[in-house]
């Protein structure tokens, strides 16, 4: 076990805290847009963890300049990875935003729960069945005529 009271320990702690805050927000907020923002935080935290994986104590940026030959450099790979991850995140978030617009327009609500129940109802109507999980007791076993008396 390493100590957390080092610079990288604190960095890790911060990164994890960030993603935890994001995750918590994702769980407790009902508003779609807030959920999206929470997702952004969540991803940001994870990206930080990823970029920290290339962190070398006392390392410098991995760019060959005239003065730095021989210096300890940070790992360039995670930086490249995190660049990719961030852009991927941006794409997904933009997409989510557009979907949220559409959903808001259609359902007139940004509440995840309302939307879920409306969605369920729509699916059920389309399939021609009653929505699942309505609160009635389990359907009694129906006897077909002639089945009694056994």
């Amino acid at each position, binding site marked *: 076990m390493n100590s957390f009271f080092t610079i990288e320990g604190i960095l890790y702690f911060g990164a994890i805290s960030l993603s935890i805050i994001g995750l918590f927000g994702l769980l*407790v907020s009902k508003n779609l847009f807030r959920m999206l923002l929470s997702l952004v935080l969540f991803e940001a935290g994870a990206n930080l963890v990823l970029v920290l994986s*290339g962190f070398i104590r006392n390392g410098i940026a991995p760019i060959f300049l005239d003065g730095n030959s021989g210096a300890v*450099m*940070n*790992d360039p790979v995670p930086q490249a990875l995190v660049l990719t991850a961030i852009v991927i995140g941006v794409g997904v978030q933009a997409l989510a935003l557009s979907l949220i617009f559409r959903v808001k327009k259609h359902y007139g609500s940004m509440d995840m729960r309302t939307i879920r129940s409306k969605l369920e109802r729509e699916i059920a109507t389309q399939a021609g069945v009653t929505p699942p999980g309505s609160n009635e007791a389990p359907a009694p076993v129906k006897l077909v005529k002639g089945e009694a008396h056994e």
Partner: protein
Amino acid sequence: MTKYSALLFISGLVFLLMVITGLLPMGHTPMLVGNAILEGAKDQVGAANVVTSVVLGYRGLDTLGELSILFAAASVVGLVLTKSSFNKHASNNDDKHDHHDSGFVAVNAIDLIFPLLLVVGMYIITHGHLTPGGGFQGGVVLAVAFSMLVIVRPRRVSINHGMVSIIESFAGVSFIVIGVVALFKGQSFLQPLLGHGEFASLWSAGTLPLLYLAVGLKVGAELAGLLLALNTDEVAS
């Protein structure tokens, strides 16, 4: 109820993540691949910025994938937000109120910094293999520049969607073409070509600057397209 159970499980997750973190070699990671790249990048790719070597050289396919994701996201946003009666409905309602220019300060400030932003963006793109930055960062700056223009003057300035899509297609295609040319020269896909040039100069690192240019254009076009598509809608109000 959800809150409390969320809290419970979140605290569990915090604990577990802390335990995992405690097991990680923080600050002195093995860096097997990293060291190999740091050693070889100068000869194999020739970019001063090793991150760029990684992004466009060693992991060029990741970058292509990432561009595709942006492209996919932009396509979806276009599909979702322009489909059916959606836009008609939106514009009927809101034409009068919101589509007017922003105030004096914003308009003039944007006029002032727009060329500046363009220059900075292009600079970041073209020097991506030398300094921090590159296609993504520069592309974002470009996209921001254009979309700010539209935001402050929604009526007078409009960006041609067709143009944007042609640019993004062109950029993506050229990225692939550069890769495929390498493939057909008997080597691998996306293998750096054109020699390394003089190290740490603008014309170095072979095809990397070209690729970064393609990336920059692509990212700029995609993001601009995204921002524009999202801007047409009034849901956020």
